[in-house]
């Protein structure tokens, strides 16, 4: 009779995706709990063998269910004739893998109670993943110093997170009385989020809102991009920096906000310091130039007189001075002209450190080198020097006056330091070597001891007395200084008695800002 009543219900249940089965509980004895009906879906949802399970005791088929107190729940439904929701629970059947089920127990009639179960594993899995994501998000927002605002496109706040560092400054302090106008402070109070649901305008002062709003508007434009903004709060003297970016759908906007006051102050301090240094340097450079300028006149002027009047005296006393007297006067005049030469060379050297205002020009060495040598033609004739210039020389970009000076100094050196009794032999060459131009001046002269290689480029450093070889000891130092202005260098190779080769190395491309 009873099973007939059940039969009227069950055909429809076979069509449902939920696993539905009916048990009969005689009295309250758990051992009597028997499967009466099992629908098709039960095999799928709970792994029942639908063909054999009917008529068997539950304690036999799944003893674990009885241990879990299943029969007590059934008894309760039978007694109260009310449905019980079991919620979501983990389930492991003999024929199915571990899963999450959601079940309810409902009364049918008399001793019959129905169980309806659904596999909610997918849903539960999503929930778990979501919880993990949320955890990650919370952990992230708790470590970033930025305030994180999540908004919809209407500027309604969905969430605010983080801002730990923001809270340390008065404008975002947690003490409301220290914060005259910045409402953003309130959003920092954990655990709840009182700003959610509010319009951005209600949270920030008007000027600040306008800045953020503009960035959000830009972020929402096509194509999506992150927009940067800065804000200086005049009242609190704090600087903020932020970014806004929209999701692809344009529905959600994320804005971060950071207090950069200390950074700004530091940057400003650095800028100021650099500016101060630069101006100090410019000042001292100017003073040095003034000094050199004054020296060029004030030092030379009295010296000029010594030379000029020494000459006049020598003319005036002609015939009246004995040999000694003439020698003394000769030394005097000679020394003063040497000193004059020295001052001129030093001034050239100091001027080589100054900025060249003119731009470098194209110089074809095939034409340039012979022109430079013309300036030395007197010395060349005097020494009967043999100067060989290589052919097919490159063209480079330099200041002709500087290169001229360098070449003249190097060639005069070669003419000067020839072997006693010999004729100077000089070879000039130039070629491209990778990223550099090289110009070499080679002689067969007296050479030098390699241990002095670095020495010879220093100001006032001489390897010989002026009686053997005249000079001020500035020429090579000047060459090096001029070449270094182009980011280049100069090398000397030599051995005593075996000649010297100077090689000037100029980069093809000068450093952008020449020192």
């Amino acid at each position: 009779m009873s099973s007939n009543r059940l039969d009227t219900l069950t055909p429809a249940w076979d069509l449902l995706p939920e696993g539905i089965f009916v048990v009969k509980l005689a009295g309250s004895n758990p051992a009597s709990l028997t499967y009466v009906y099992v629908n098709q879906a039960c095999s799928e949802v709970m792994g029942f063998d639908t063909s054999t399970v009917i008529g068997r005791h539950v304690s036999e088929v799944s003893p674990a269910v009885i241990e879990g107190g299943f029969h007590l729940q059934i008894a309760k439904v039978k007694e109260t004739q009310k449905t019980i929701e079991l919620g979501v629970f983990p389930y492991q059947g003999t024929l199915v893998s571990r899963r999450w089920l959601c079940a309810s127990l409902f009364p049918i009639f008399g001793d019959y109670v129905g169980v309806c179960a659904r596999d909610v594993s997918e849903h539960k899995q999503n929930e778990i993943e979501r919880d993990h994501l949320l955890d990650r998000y919370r952990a992230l927002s708790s470590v970033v110093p930025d305030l994180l605002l999540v908004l919809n496109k209407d500027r309604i706040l969905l969430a605010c997170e983080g801002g730990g560092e923001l809270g340390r400054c008065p404008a975002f302090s947690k003490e409301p009385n220290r914060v005259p106008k910045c409402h953003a402070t309130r959003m920092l109070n954990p655990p709840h989020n009182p700003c959610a649901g509010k319009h951005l305008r209600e949270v920030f002062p008007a000027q600040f809102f306008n800045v953020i709003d503009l960035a959000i508007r830009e972020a929402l434009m096509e194509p999506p991009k992150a927009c940067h903004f800065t804000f200086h709060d005049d009242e609190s003297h704090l600087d903020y920096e932020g970014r806004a970016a929209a999701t692809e759908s344009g529905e959600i906007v994320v804005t971060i906000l950071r207090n950069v006051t200390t950074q700004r102050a530091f940057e400003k301090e650095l800028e100021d310091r650099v500016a101060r240094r630069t101006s100090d340097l410019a000042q001292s450079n100017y003073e040095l130039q003034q000094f050199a300028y004054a020296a060029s006149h004030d030092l030379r002027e009295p010296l000029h007189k010594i030379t000029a009047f020494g000459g006049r005296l020598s003319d005036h006393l002609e015939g009246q001075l004995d040999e000694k007297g003439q020698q003394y006067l000769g030394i005097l005049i000679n020394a003063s002209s040497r000193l004059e030469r020295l001052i001129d060379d030093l001034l050239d050297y100091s001027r080589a450190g100054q900025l060249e205002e003119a731009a470098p020009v194209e110089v074809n060495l095939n034409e340039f080198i012979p022109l430079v040598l013309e300036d030395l033609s007197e010395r060349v004739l005097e020494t009967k020097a043999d100067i060989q210039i290589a052919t097919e020389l490159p063209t480079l970009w330099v200041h002709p006056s500087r290169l001229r000076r360098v070449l003249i100094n190097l060639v005069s050196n070669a003419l000067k330091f020839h072997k006693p009794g010999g004729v100077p032999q000089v070879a000039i060459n130039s070629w491209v070597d990778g990223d550099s131009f090289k110009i070499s001046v080679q002689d067969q002269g007296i050479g030098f001891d390699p241990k002095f290689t670095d020495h010879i480029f220093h100001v006032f450093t001489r390897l010989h007395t002026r009686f053997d070889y005249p000079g001020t000891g500035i020429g090579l130092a000047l060459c090096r200084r001029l070449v270094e202005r182009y980011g280049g260098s100069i090398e000397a190779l030599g051995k005593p008695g075996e000649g010297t080769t100077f090689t000037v190395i100029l980069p093809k491309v000068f450093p952008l800002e020449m020192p």
Partner: protein
Amino acid sequence: MKVESLILLFAEDDDEDWMLIEEALETCDQDSYERVKNGEELLSRLLEGNTPHMIILDIRMPRMDGFAALEEIRKDPFLRHLPVMVMTTSKSDIDIARSYACGANGYLVKPTTFPLMKEMLGQARRYWAELVELPEGPWLPKEIKAGGVI
């Protein structure tokens, strides 16, 4: 116009340098010369009229230096035609550039020896007296001529 005898006006503050210059000048006796000691004296001398054929100007002088004097001369319509040669001890690029920028007609560095000084002054004289033509007087704009300011 070419002149047989140049009238030179020197602005030179240094008595010792002037001694050398004067001794050198005495060797070419067809020219006459005058000396003032600074820019101010130079300008007041030029205002007296009886303008020289050319001016030889030192740069560093007390009260008014050569640059300032040269600028004044080039501003004055009655004086700006006068050839001005700068003669100084300085070899500085800055002084050379600035002199020409102010309107100098030449830049001479005072030579160290007396023979060179004679040689230099002689060459300069040949250039200005024998080679180039000098203006007879100032070229005046119409309005000044019409107003007859003189």
